[in-house]
């Protein structure tokens, strides 16, 4: 089974067929061809499982369980809506629904969402049941909300009806069970005003010319060099940390949803702490700043966040990211994340002063000050 999943992952899911452009700084996920007639592209990024696990758990400390669940459910739902609008766009014909669902859930499985290993669809009762084990992120956070939100949006779209997904898991992470049930209301009605794809999305995210000064690595370089390992839990890991991919909207949507509940300042404080903690672990064996920066530069580039350039003068640091993923939800999350990374590299606190987005050529500049 594991070999089949691995084979599927490489041959069908991500490389080389799914990502048509995988170069330093940019990962472009191309979908389509099988169930629709247009080639759909979206910007993807890789991230560490722990970054979301820690954030979900930290958030639960300031919200009650229900509020936290609702927040992450909305984040998962919104991220999936954007994925649908960018990547899937058209519903498959009804007679293909079962095949489509099977194909999609198998794809999820190979990305680490192993709760979708077994799938059952009852069209009469309008119920979908997913079973598996060891689903990435919620296996550690114990908060399945984000995944459920995503499943509900996906199923609602494909079946053109209103669905709500919840869990009946046992002995987490050993027995995952997600049930998506029809709820009152009809059709798939996302908030298009907020979720609609911005007109310049393609122009900003699919730059043809991405030449860079210096040598930067792509994600496929990490695979070529066997730095990406498939671990015993059927998750991809890099430097002993599980990694997974998402459309690049996720992190902007995290900020968008936190802002809606007035918790932006919490993110500003928490994301750097989490990012610093993870970076400390990744750079444990490195003793000098140059080698730490070199690793950071290559990870950021390989994970699809743009080509990373670093400038320092006295107390200020400017990070320039060439061809980063750009969405209308902003770059704040990544700016805070990079703050934490730099805090780890320099073993010093930083303050984010400004995020500057330049659209021609596409560059994001992050300005930080070292805090004494």
């Amino acid at each position, binding site marked *: 089974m594991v070999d089949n999943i691995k084979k599927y992952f490489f041959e069908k899911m991500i490389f080389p067929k799914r990502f048509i452009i995988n*170069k*330093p700084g940019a990962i472009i996920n191309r979908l389509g061809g099988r169930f629709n007639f247009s080639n759909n592209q979206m910007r993807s990024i890789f991230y560490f499982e722990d970054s979301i696990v820690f954030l979900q758990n930290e958030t639960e400390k300031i919200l009650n369980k229900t509020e936290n669940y609702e927040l992450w459910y909305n984040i998962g739902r919104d991220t999936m809506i954007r994925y649908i609008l960018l990547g899937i766009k058209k519903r498959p014909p009804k007679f293909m629904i079962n095949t489509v669902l099977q194909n999609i859930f198998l794809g999820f499985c190979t990305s680490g969402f192993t709760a979708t290993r077994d799938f059952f669809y009852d069209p009469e009762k309008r119920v979908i049941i997913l079973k598996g084990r060891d689903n990435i992120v919620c296996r550690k956070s114990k908060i399945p909300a984000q995944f459920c939100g995503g499943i509900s949006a996906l199923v609602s779209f494909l079946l053109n009806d209103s669905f709500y997904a919840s869990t009946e898991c046992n002995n987490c992470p050993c027995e995952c069970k997600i049930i998506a049930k029809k709820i009152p209301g009809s059709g798939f009605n996302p908030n298009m005003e907020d979720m609609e794809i911005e007109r310049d999305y393609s122009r900003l995210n699919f730059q043809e*010319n*991405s*030449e*860079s000064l210096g*040598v930067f*690595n792509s994600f496929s*370089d*990490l695979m*070529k*060099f*066997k*730095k990406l390992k498939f671990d015993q839990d059927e998750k991809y890991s890099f*430097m002993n940390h599980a990694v997974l991919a998402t459309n690049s909207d996720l992190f902007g949507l995290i900020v968008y949803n936190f802002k809606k509940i007035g918790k932006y300042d919490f993110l500003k404080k928490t994301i750097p702490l989490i990012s610093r903690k993870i970076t400390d672990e990744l750079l444990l*064996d*490195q003793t000098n700043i140059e*080698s*730490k920066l*070199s*690793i950071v530069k*290559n*990870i950021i580039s390989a994970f699809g966040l743009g080509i990373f350039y670093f400038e320092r003068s006295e107390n200020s640091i400017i990070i320039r990211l060439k061809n980063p993923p750009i969405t209308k939800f902003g770059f704040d999350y990544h700016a805070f994340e990079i703050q934490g990374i730099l805090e780890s590299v320099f073993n010093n606190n930083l303050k984010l002063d400004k995020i500057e987005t330049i659209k021609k050529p596409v560059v994001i500049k992050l300005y930080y000050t070292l805090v004494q």
Partner: protein
Amino acid sequence: MKKDKIITNNGFKKFSREGTGIKEVDSMIEGGFPENSVIGLSGPPGVGKSIFTMHFLLEGARKGEKCLYINLEEPEKNINNLIMQFDFSDEFKRYINEGKIIIKCYSYNEYEQIYLELFEKIKEDNSLKRIVIDTFNCFFSSILPEDNISGSGFKSIKKTINEIFSILRAKNSVTLVVLEDIYNKESTVYYNIPHLVDGMINLDFLELGTIERRIFIPKMRWTNQYKESRVFEINVKGINILEGE
């Protein structure tokens, strides 16, 4: 001197092979490069392509073969400085003095004018058994700069490359063409050369704290090549392929 060629049977035809000079690389390609082949050697700057070619030339010279090394980027002084870093430098220099290894360096202005003559000279010299052109894609960026390429210009270069490869293949020799990896590998400066050669050896490195170098062999016609990559390092012996993957 009796030539010691390796014969393998791929089930259809027996091929004579020329050793690369690095025994572990030979074992990855059933003993060596196929006879009369043109092999591409690509990789980013500083990964070890020129050193690889030194092994290839040295192997030929040891067998008594006449070998030609053409450099289109560096002056001869730089080539000498490169050779001096390795334990095999004395032996290499001896073969140069004996005329078994011929080093020819051309500057940018020169090869723009002489490239056709150069290949005519190679065509006429039947004693050459190993040829290295370092770097091959240089020729074409000088003739037609990348920012000035039009459809007809590109077609004309492809035609020229095909003609050159025909000349090289018609000789009883193996040619190694070094291809500099431009940072954007989809650049037209590659002119589809990987599709036109008989084999590709790719050297690459990854920097994650330390620098790790790997050799990949994505293509080798008429050969059941080793599909995985191998790690290598560069030391005083030159390129040293390490155990394991």
